[in-house]
């Protein structure tokens, strides 16, 4: 397993795999959010300026909402994603992998002030580099983390072929290795496939492409195909 994957056991007794998002995609998401908010503010400021000085007060209220409330409201109502995070495929989750709730979201967004401090997100950057789950200080205190939404790609299908019963009984690990070889054979060059298959010549009694075919046949048999 890669070290950025965090495994969390759920109450159902299975484990979730959360892929922690590093500083770069998060900075990009933040930049998207920044430009979005600036755009909204400018668009709103034009009609508000018609109201004279009173409009200035409304503009300040809007600025306040965009500065402090935007992230919290988006994260809670849009399933842990501000619009920038949605664009970059990121998501904020609680430490147990559940969607982020009100208070943790408030904590992590208030403490953004600390993470943003020296220059542009100096503390936050250092914190994401040190922390194993790439959390900034606000995330650590809130008990949240930012993850990639897209799951890891599913395994490929074992090529269909006539099933060949195995001549000997293999233990579970060996069976799994055989099936995994068959699954991944599509991603390997024929030369590499043959090189790997030749390791099992004592089992198959064949060499090169014939050995590859036979192993895939065994894998088909292990999966229970006809």
């Amino acid at each position, binding site marked *: 397993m890669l070290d950025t994957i965090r495994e969390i056991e759920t109450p159902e007794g299975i484990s979730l*795999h959360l892929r922690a998002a590093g500083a770069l995609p998060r900075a990009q998401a933040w930049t998207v959010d920044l430009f979005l908010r600036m755009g909204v503010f400018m668009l709103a400021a034009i009609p508000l300026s018609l109201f004279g000085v009173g409009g200035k007060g409304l503009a300040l209220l809007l600025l306040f909402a965009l500065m402090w409330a935007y992230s919290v409201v988006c994260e809670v109502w849009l399933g842990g994603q501000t619009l920038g995070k949605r664009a970059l495929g990121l998501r904020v989750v609680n430490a147990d992998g559940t969607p982020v709730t009100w208070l943790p979201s408030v904590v992590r967004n208030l403490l953004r002030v600390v993470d943003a401090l020296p220059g542009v997100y100096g503390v936050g950057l250092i914190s994401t580099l040190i922390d194993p789950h790439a959390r900034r200080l606000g995330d650590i205190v809130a008990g949240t983390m930012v993850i990639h939404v897209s799951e890891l790609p599913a395994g490929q299908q074992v090529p269909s072929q006539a099933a060949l019963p195995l001549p000997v009984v293999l233990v579970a690990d060996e069976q799994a290795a055989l099936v995994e070889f068959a699954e991944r054979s599509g991603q390997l060059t024929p030369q590499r496939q043959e090189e790997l298959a030749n390791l099992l010549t004592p089992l198959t009694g064949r060499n090169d492409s014939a050995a590859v075919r036979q192993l895939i046949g065994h894998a088909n048999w292990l999966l229970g195909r006809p």
Partner: protein
Amino acid sequence: MKQERFVALHGREWDSLQSWLSALERQPKRTMRQEQALDFPVSYRRLCHHLALARGRGYSHEVTDRLQRIVQQGHRVMYRPPAPRWHRVASFLIAGFPRLVRAQWRCMAAAAVLFYMPALITLVLMQVRPELAHTVFSSVQLADVEKMYDPANTHLGRSSGTDMQMFGFYVMNNVSIAFRTFASGLFFGVGAIYVLGANGVLIGGVAGHLTAIGYGGPFWRFVVGHSALELSALVIAGGAGLQLGLTLLTPGRQRRGPALVAAGWVGAQLALGAFAMLLAAAFVEAYWSSIAALPDVLKFGSGALLWLLVLGWLWRGGRGTSHGA
């Protein structure tokens, strides 16, 4: 059981759950009203069971990855945050927040001392040695402040602008200060101590200077209305920051991580309460404090009443009820 047979037996069930979950992402409200929503917890747990079986039996990635993806999607739906209940906001403001403030009374008392001590000392010093004003403030700042509280001014506490504009300004300015005070407490409390002290000197300095030069009347008439809410909120935000910093220094009988998370939750609730107080304060400041034509009795009477209400609320609020918030 062989893998192919397992998939053949349950594959259709997985597909239907998968398609329901995808539909839920596109149209949450409509999909939730479907019949299938009632079966979701059962089918989700069955899916988890299947995943555990598939892993235990060593099935290939084709199956485990497929199940894992549906499980992750289902987990988000199963454990999504509950819809906000508005009465909880009310019960938090009436009972939960004062209770939380009292529970953290040591930090609140420390924050009050850190804020009021410098303020009082500066205020008194300005009476004894008025020239000190030029040490604390630049002459531009002094001129600004003097213009705002000039007894000849028809609007108290501002040189220009309407009520609406000032309301927006007060919210933006004061709430940002309060939030930053809380957040900067994470630096071992140093940030909160600095902000509290600096604001104490600033506010005491302005009050002292204006009183010393004889503009005290308009100044005190202006600030007395909203001072209760605004100063208390600042002290509470500072106390929340101190609490966070102290937890980082002395987590007590817990590891630092969990202790910080707990302190963060308390701090966020205190900051939210302070936000509500500052919102109310900004409203009073913009629409009530600025009226110059009211008699002194009304101004100072309402100010004293607000102080009594705020302190009484923080002192007694949420007592006697055993649940709520």
